[in-house]
Each structure stands twice: as structure tokens, then as C-alpha cells.
């Protein structure tokens, strides 16, 4: 007992000396260097979402390099080097929650960045809340995460109900204005949430929803539903589902000569797979996206959009543009950084309060959280695959790089 207290006294003495030395060294350089800031990150390094998880990690690491090159994140004149402590949650919500607890209790993470996916984010949010550690997440868009009254979870991305709203807003500006709409949806909860919101929003904007139906997740034979939709002769065909179903619907629409003025699919068109699978038949199709490399936001700090794209290509030695998963993940880091700077502190509670009142423009768009902690202030942008075979951002007009190619010509005259 006695030996132990002597030892601990010695250790504290040693620690004091180190801190004192560190302090004096720092003060001679103008701004002080504080302790390293440990940010915990549970992430899908393996498992079913390993590909998307890898993209999210790229986004986090891109910011990590940048901020540490600046000497760290600046809290009231003291610069803290940032350490991102990753744990592989295998894309499983229960494991993700356990690892989040470990990151907070053992690794002493003061702040958290979110995992990949709505399910893991929802389970990690519970842990963040219980421990009073703020988590900024970029890859969980289901509103369910934000309807529990949590105070410590913040999402920088537009929520699920916004996915097709941009398309409908855009449709209202087109000439000749479309008036009728068919809405198909896969039957998973995320797709249904997107579809329900799109239907309600379209109705409120004066569109007439003439056909709706849902199909089992992963269906590849959707010709029957498309034939039903065709019988109603809709001006717009919207789908809320996944890539395989978007391809099936587009093929069936051509097979059955469903002639709509506008085709828009929640997920699918933004990926290269969609264009590769369909070739020229993918032209004119619209899709919602969290972000595109063409957007023209004027950021108040960090990099501009072209610089961000260039930095990405340089770090990862690729000619591909960064995916929106990468961009939104970097945006989560920026929200944390700005909140720390505004709070002038890295203390979890101070950072949380600063996050709640944050309002900045970044390369990813505006970041401002509503009372539930989700970023409802950033619009989804609308992309279109145009006749040059490339993706163009067509809405909202202030960030667009091209005008919508509208109306979609008849299949026979393409």
C-alpha cells in the first residue's frame, strides 16, 4: 500500500514535469500545443458494408492529414494534434455499440465520428448519449436515428425524406411542367420512408400521384409493375430502391415503351455501374445525391470543391472523383473542427453545445442542425446522366453545372 502511494506520487511528479516542459516549449512558439485529441471511430472495415466503410474512412483520413499539417485543431489558442482511433465493427450494429463503449471508456475518446450505415449509427447513438460524448455522423440518413430526443448525435447529411424532394422541386420549374407521377418503392424501411415523403411532398406541390406500388427488396422482374404504371400514362416515374431495381425498371420502361418525361431513381444513377449496365439507355435519368464534385458552394474554411477533389486524387493516387460518401465523411470532421474552434475547448459538453448552434458553409454545403440534430438545411442536389454519358449536377440552379435535359425524348427517337 505504502509502496504504491510512493510510486503514484513519483508518477504524478514526473507527469507534472513533462506537462510543464511541454507548456514552456509551446508558449515559445506563439500558440500552445495541447494534449492529443483522441476521436473514436467505429467503422465497417470488414463485413457487408466494407466498401462504403472504406470510402467513409477515406473521407475522415483526408481531413486528418490536413488538420495535423496545420498543427492540429485550434481550441482557444491551444493546438491539439488529432488522433483518429478506428475500431472494426464488422458492419454489425451490436459490435459497433460495444466498440463505441470501449473507445470511450478504455481509449478515452473525447469525441466520436460516426460509423457507416443507419443501423450501426442508431446503436452507437445510444452509447454516445449514455456517456455524454458528442458524435458527428455522416453515413446514417434514416430519420429514426434522430426521433429519440438524443442530445449528443449530429448528422451532417440530408435525411431520408429529402432524397427525392430535390427532383420534385426541380420538376416544378420545368417547362412543359409535368403533372402526373408514378411512385415505385422497394419494401425496406429506408426506401419506404423516401417514397412516402416524396409522395406527400409531390401532392403538396400540386402533382397528381396516379400510381404507387411496392415490391420486395432485390426484385429483378419488375415488368409487371412498369406495365401497370404505363397504363396510367404518368409524366414522371420515380423509384425509391436500390441499384439493381433501378436498372430493372429502366430496362422494363424501354421494353414496354413507357414514355415518361422524367425518370428519377433515389439510388443507382449516381454510380458508374448504372451507366455501364445500361449504356445510352441511362441517358436523361435523374437521381438525388448528397453531394457531387460539380457543386459550387463557397466554403468559409477548409478547401474549395475543386481543391478538395484534387486533394482526394493526390492522396489516394486515383483519377476517380471522390464519391459522396467520402465528401460527407470529411464534412462530419469539419463540423467537429468548427465546433471545437467556436467552443474554444475540446470538452465534450462544450463541443456539443457548439455543434447545436453551428451554422457554416463548407465544400459539402451548409451544415446546421435542427433541434433533433440532423442537417435539414442542406438540399439534396439532383444529378442527371446527360447525352454525353456524363453525370451533371442540374439542381438547385445556384450549384448546378448544367441545365436539365428535358423532356426525355420518346424511346424510339433516341
Amino acid at each position, binding site marked *: 500500500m505504502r509502496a504504491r502511494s510512493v510510486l503514484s506520487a513519483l508518477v504524478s511528479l514526473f507527469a507534472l514535469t513533462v506537462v510543464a516542459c511541454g507548456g514552456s516549449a509551446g508558449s515559445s512558439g506563439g500558440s500552445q500545443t495541447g494534449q492529443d485529441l483522441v476521436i473514436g471511430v467505429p467503422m465497417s472495415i470488414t463485413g457487408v458494408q466494407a*466498401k462504403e466503410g472504406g470510402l467513409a474512412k477515406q473521407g475522415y483520413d483526408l481531413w486528418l492529414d490536413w488538420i495535423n499539417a496545420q498543427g492540429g485543431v485550434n481550441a482557444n489558442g491551444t493546438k491539439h494534434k488529432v488522433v483518429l482511433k478506428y475500431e472494426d465493427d464488422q458492419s454489425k450494429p451490436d459490435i459497433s455499440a460495444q466498440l463505441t463503449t470501449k473507445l470511450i471508456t478504455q481509449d478515452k475518446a473525447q469525441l466520436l465520428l460516426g460509423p457507416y450505415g443507419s443501423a450501426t449509427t442508431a446503436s452507437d447513438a445510444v452509447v454516445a448519449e449514455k456517456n455524454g460524448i458528442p458524435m458527428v455522423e455522416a453515413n446514417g440518413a434514416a430519420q429514426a436515428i434522430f426521433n429519440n430526443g438524443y442530445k449528443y448525435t449530429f448528422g451532417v447529411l440530408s435525411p431520408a425524406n429529402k432524397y427525392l424532394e430535390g427532383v420534385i422541386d426541380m420538376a416544378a420549374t420545368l417547362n412543359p411542367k409535368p403533372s402526373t407521377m408514378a411512385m415505385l418503392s422497394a*419494401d425496406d424501411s429506408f426506401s419506404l420512408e423516401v417514397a412516402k415523403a416524396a409522395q406527400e411532398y409531390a401532392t403538396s406541390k400540386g402533382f397528381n400521384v396516379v400510381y404507387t*406500388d*411496392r*415490391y*420486395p427488396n*432485390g*426484385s*429483378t*422482374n*419488375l*415488368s*409487371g*409493375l412498369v*406495365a*401497370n404504371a404505363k*397504363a396510367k400514362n404518368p409524366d414522371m416515374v420515380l423509384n425509391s430502391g436500390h*441499384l*439493381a431495381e433501378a*436498372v*430493372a425498371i429502366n*430496362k422494363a420502361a*424501354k*421494353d*414496354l*415503351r413507357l414514355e415518361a418525361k422524367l425518370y428519377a431513381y433515389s439510388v443507382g444513377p449516381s*454510380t458508374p*455501374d*448504372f451507366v*455501364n*449496365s*445500361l*449504356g445510352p*439507355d441511362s441517358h436523361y435519368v435523374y437521381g438525388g445525391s448528397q453531394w457531387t464534385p460539380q457543386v459550387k458552394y463557397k466554403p468559409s474554411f477548409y478547401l474549395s470543391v475543386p481543391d478538395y477533389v484534387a486533394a482526394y486524387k493526390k492522396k489516394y493516387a486515383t483519377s476517380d472523383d471522390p464519391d459522396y460518401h467520402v465528401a460527407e465523411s470529411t464534412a462530419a470532421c469539419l463540423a467537429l473542427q468548427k465546433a471545437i474552434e467556436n467552443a474554444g475547448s475540446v470538452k465534450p459538453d462544450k463541443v456539443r453545445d457548439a455543434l447545436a448552434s453551428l451554422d457554416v458553409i463548407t465544400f459539402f454545403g451548409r451544415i446546421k442542425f435542427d433541434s433533433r440534430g440532423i442537417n435539414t438545411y442542406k438540399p439534396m442536389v439532383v444529378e442527371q446522366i446527360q447525352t454525353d454519358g456524363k453525370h451533371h449536377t442540374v439542381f438547385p440552379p445556384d450549384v448546378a453545372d448544367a441545365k436539365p435535359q428535358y423532356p426525355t425524348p420518346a*424511346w424510339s427517337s433516341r
Partner: protein
Amino acid sequence: MTLLVQQLVLGLLIGGVYVAVAIGFSLVWGVLNIVNLAHGGLVIIGAYLTWLLFSAFNVDPFLSIPIVAAALFVIGYVVQRLLINRVIRAPIFFTLLLTFGVNLVIINVLLLLFKSDFRSVTPSYSGSGLSLGGVQLPYIRVAGLAVALLLAGAVALFLARSRIGGAIQAVGADRDAAQLVGVDLRHVYALTFGIGAACAGVAGGLISTAQAITPSAGEPYTLQAFVVVILGGLGRVSATVVGGLLFGVVETLAQTMVPGLGAGWANAIAFAILVVVLAVRPRGLMGRPV
């Protein structure tokens, strides 16, 4: 009325794909007494080969059918000879386990080779078709149905007329008796499995033009082949044709003609009909008496 006719046509067209998928499955089940859980995997190998020929050498998906079928025949022959033959007389559980494992190997090899990106074969004439009084007949799908029926006819003719076909049928009827009269069992087994795989390859070629494929896209087709064979009845090619077309029509009508229920009920209705058929005619609609 036009819509109903259109839905019937669509049902028959998708039924053609089910026929193509189920012919090989039925043959292997009937002769080797193996429920081949790797059948969907073989179908997707066929789809990837078609895609590869199309994207790399611009070979038309219908022209590549013989090449793909030949390649799949070789794969099927070798897999049977080296692997499946070891459990040919084992209890059904072992054959299920082995073919399940083969399926996993196929999926993961395809993942290594092609990643999980979506692929599809979209030739220039894709989506063009004939319009008859408001009913659309997409050429590629009609051609798919024709190929499926031709395939069924060819397999039926081969089994009925050729010497090897006779041997295959003999083995299916009674393998010990067939062996006694001088049939080389191992060769016939491997041939049958090879033909089954070749049929799967043809089906894969058709599927690659109709949908986007990934390495695991074959799994639903194993189940569908199973249902079609039970619905039609085991042991006759014509039974598979009837079962496949019927399943396609029932599925499409259930998907679209029941207002308000949504397509989610299509499978439930199709399987309910399967249960009814099994209760009334346990050997399937056209199954032979045992």
C-alpha cells in the same frame, strides 16, 4: 383488357427464363437424384461469360449461347467427376451440403474476378420490339422465350432419340440395372451434370440481357427452379416447360392484378398455388407415377 393481355404476355416471357433455368436443374435431379444448390451459381457463370464476350469482343449475347453452353458443359463435367461423384450415393443431406459449398465457392471466385459491381448486357437492339394493338412484345424477351423452348425441345429430343440420351434415361430409371447392361455410370453422371450446367449457361445468357447481375444474383433462381420442377413434375422436359410458364404467369398476375396488396404478395400467392398443387397432385401437374 390490353393491360391484362400485356401482363399475360409478360408472364409468359419471364416464364421462358424460368423454363431455361429449370431444365438443367430438373435433369440433374431426375437422373442423379441430386438437388443441385449450385445451379444458380452455374447460371450466373453463364451470365458473366456472356457479359465478358459482349463487353470484350462485342459478341452478340444470342450468338455467344453455344460458346457459353460448351464452356459450362466442361465445367459441369469436371465438377461432377471430381466432386459430386464422391457423394452420389450418400444421403441427400451430404449432396445438399456439397452443392451448397460449391455454390459459395462459385460466388466468391466470381467476386474475386469481377468484384461486386453490377453488370448487364445491353446490345443496341435492347428494348426495341413489336407493338400489337397496344401490347408490347420486346424482341429480346421474345427471343429469350424462343431460345428456352428450343432448348427444351433439343433436350427432349436428345433424351428420346440419341444413344447417350437413352443411357441417361436408363440410369435415371434404375442405375443398378443400367450398370448391369453395360452403361458406364460415372461417364453418364458426368455427362448429365454437364448438360445440366450447359442449360444453366444458356439461361444465364438470357438473364444477362434482362437484368443487372452480380456474383450472388443466381441464388433466387435456384429456388425458382426448385418450385418450377415441383409444380410441373419431375422426369419430363414438357412438365418443366408447363411448370415454368405457369409459374411466370401466376407470379406476374399476382404481382400486378391484386390491387392494393403490392408486389410483396406475389411470392406468397405463387407459393400458395404450389402448396395446393402438391396437396392435390403430389407428383406435380405432369409428373410421372412412381
